[in-house]
Every structure is written in structure tokens, then in C-alpha cells.
């Protein structure tokens, strides 16, 4: 069983500057920030290393950090430019009974993160959801399609903070 700090030190040793930081505050669980273009390799290591054995991906979620420049529009909505989107990985080892949280940050304009769907098979649909609702592109994903919204949804990704719902979808009025 290892703490987040020990895991961070192990990762830092192996991947050095690609592991960005360990954030631990009293109010939240500690998390490790990783470069989005090395996350696949890091996850393989976390799963296969004998001292780590993270055999379970408990959750993979996308987040819109909404930390870019916010511009108010005349209709009361906002548009956001710049800033980041992020993906959060909650891992658990059912063998060694320890957990760790990883985060990657990726630019909002070109959000690209390596897919981990060949590390844990369950990541496949989680990543499709993050793509569908937040709009994060997972590189090397086997089947990156929308999973919840209709395939022909053209209005963008609904959980972005500056998302605007369309007036009509296939002739049906969408607003109340």
C-alpha cells in the first residue's frame, strides 16, 4: 500500500519532467498532474508495476475548467476563449488496496489527450462520454463517437460552460 506522495516519487523517477506536480491540500484528496501526451505510458506503468498494480479505473471524467477569457454576449450568454479542459482519472488497486488520482490539463482550443482504453477496457465508453459532453479528443481511441447525444448533434458539446443549445433539432423546438 502506497500513499500518493510515494506514487508521485516513483513516477517522477521514471518519467521525470513529464510528471508535472503533486497537489495536496487538506480539503481535497491529493492528485498528480501529468502531461496529456504521456498519460497512456504512465497508466501502463501504474497498472503493470508490481508495487503499484492499479488494476481498476474507477472513474474517468472530463472537466471544463472555464479558466479562459470570458466574453459576455448580447443575449446574456458567455463565450470562453483560451484556458484549459481537463481529464481526471481515479485509479484503485484492488490487490494492494491503494488509490491515486491523476489529472491532465489540455488547451481548450485543441484538446488532445492520449486514450487509455487499451490499458483499462472500461475507459472506452468513459472517454466517449468525455468526448461527447466536453469535447476532448482522445488520441488512438478505437471508436471515438458520441455516446449519449444523437450522432447527428451539431450544436457542440453540452457540458462546456459556454455551450448554447440550438433552437431546433429535426424540426422539434428545443427550448421550453
Amino acid at each position: 500500500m502506497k500513499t500518493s506522495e510515494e506514487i508521485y516519487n516513483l513516477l517522477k523517477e521514471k518519467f521525470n519532467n513529464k510528471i508535472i506536480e503533486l497537489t495536496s491540500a487538506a480539503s481535497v484528496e491529493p492528485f498528480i498532474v501529468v502531461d496529456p501526451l504521456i498519460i497512456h505510458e504512465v497508466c501502463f506503468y501504474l497498472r503493470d508495476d508490481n508495487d503499484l498494480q492499479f488494476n481498476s479505473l474507477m472513474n474517468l471524467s472530463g472537466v471544463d475548467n472555464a479558466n479562459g477569457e470570458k466574453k459576455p454576449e448580447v443575449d446574456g450568454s458567455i463565450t470562453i476563449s483560451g484556458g484549459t479542459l481537463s481529464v481526471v482519472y481515479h485509479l484503485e488497486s484492488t490487490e494492494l488496496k491503494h488509490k491515486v488520482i491523476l489529472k491532465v490539463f489540455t488547451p481548450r482550443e485543441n484538446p488532445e489527450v492520449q486514450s487509455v482504453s487499451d490499458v483499462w477496457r472500461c475507459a472506452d465508453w468513459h472517454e466517449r462520454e468525455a468526448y461527447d459532453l466536453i469535447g476532448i479528443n482522445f488520441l488512438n481511441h478505437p471508436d471515438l463517437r458520441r455516446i449519449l447525444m444523437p450522432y447527428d448533434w451539431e450544436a457542440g458539446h453540452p457540458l462546456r460552460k459556454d455551450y448554447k443549445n440550438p433552437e431546433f433539432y429535426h424540426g422539434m423546438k428545443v427550448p421550453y
Partner: protein
Amino acid sequence: MGFLDKQFSDDNIVITTAEDLFNWARLSSLWQVSFGLACCAIEMMATSASHYDFDRFGVIPRPSPRQSDVIIVSGTVTLKMALRIKRLYEQMPDPKYVISMGSCSNCGGPYWEHGYHVLKGVDRVIPVDVYVPGCPPRPEALLEGLMKLQEKIRNESVVKKSA
């Protein structure tokens, strides 16, 4: 129902109008499309089960819209589902009826403002005969809705379209 109740001394004769006979037949065997959308469907299944016994009103679920008379829209109608519901409705033979069950399918329910994926009322895609309020409605409420529909059918006319 009029004459249909009154029997003559000879047991085998009943006098009625064709209209009353059709209406009586229609309202007494409303076969429903066997489908459900959300938590309302659980209440609908409870209504079908032995305690509330939908079957005593002649309502039994049919696995095909081609054999159904009524569609109970029981739950949240997402935009993705709305197109399928419209197709199911169009596959049903006339005469066909629609019961909108629960707040979601009546008007969008809790998703009315921020539900980017929810159709704000199934009456935007198919015509609704009876709205059953509730979130979800109890089986008694659905039975009440069904009896309202039966009342409506009872007053239908072959030559005059009812409102």
C-alpha cells in the same frame, strides 16, 4: 352505453347503434404498446401487475405497435428518443390514442430549463389525448387517466370527429 345494457326476454338479442358498439369495443380492449422510458415506466408496470391489474380494463401490453391501440408515453422524452416515438406512433394502426404520463412527457418536467437533451413535452411530436400529471404518477392516477380516455372514446362519433 344505452341499449347495450338492456336485454330482451330472449337472451340472444341486444339492440344498440353501430357507433355505440364500436366505441364500446374500442374502449374495452385498449392494447398498449409495450414500452417505457424512465421511472414512470416502473409505475406503469406496477399498474399492469396484479395489485392494480390493468388487464381488468382490457389493457394488455403488445410487443408490436402494429397490434396496439394506445401508446403510454411513460417518462422523459429525450430528443434522441422523440424521433423513435414518432416512428412508433406512425406505425400504429388507426384508431390510435396517446396517454402522456408524468411531468416529463407533459412539459419537460424538471428538465424544462436546463435539459439540453429533453423534448419539452411529447405533444410537440405526436398528438396527446390524455395528460396524467405527477412525478411519477401513482398507479391510481394512471388508471384515472385511462378512464378519462375511455370516457373520451365513449363519446366519439363515426361521422363527427371529436375534439
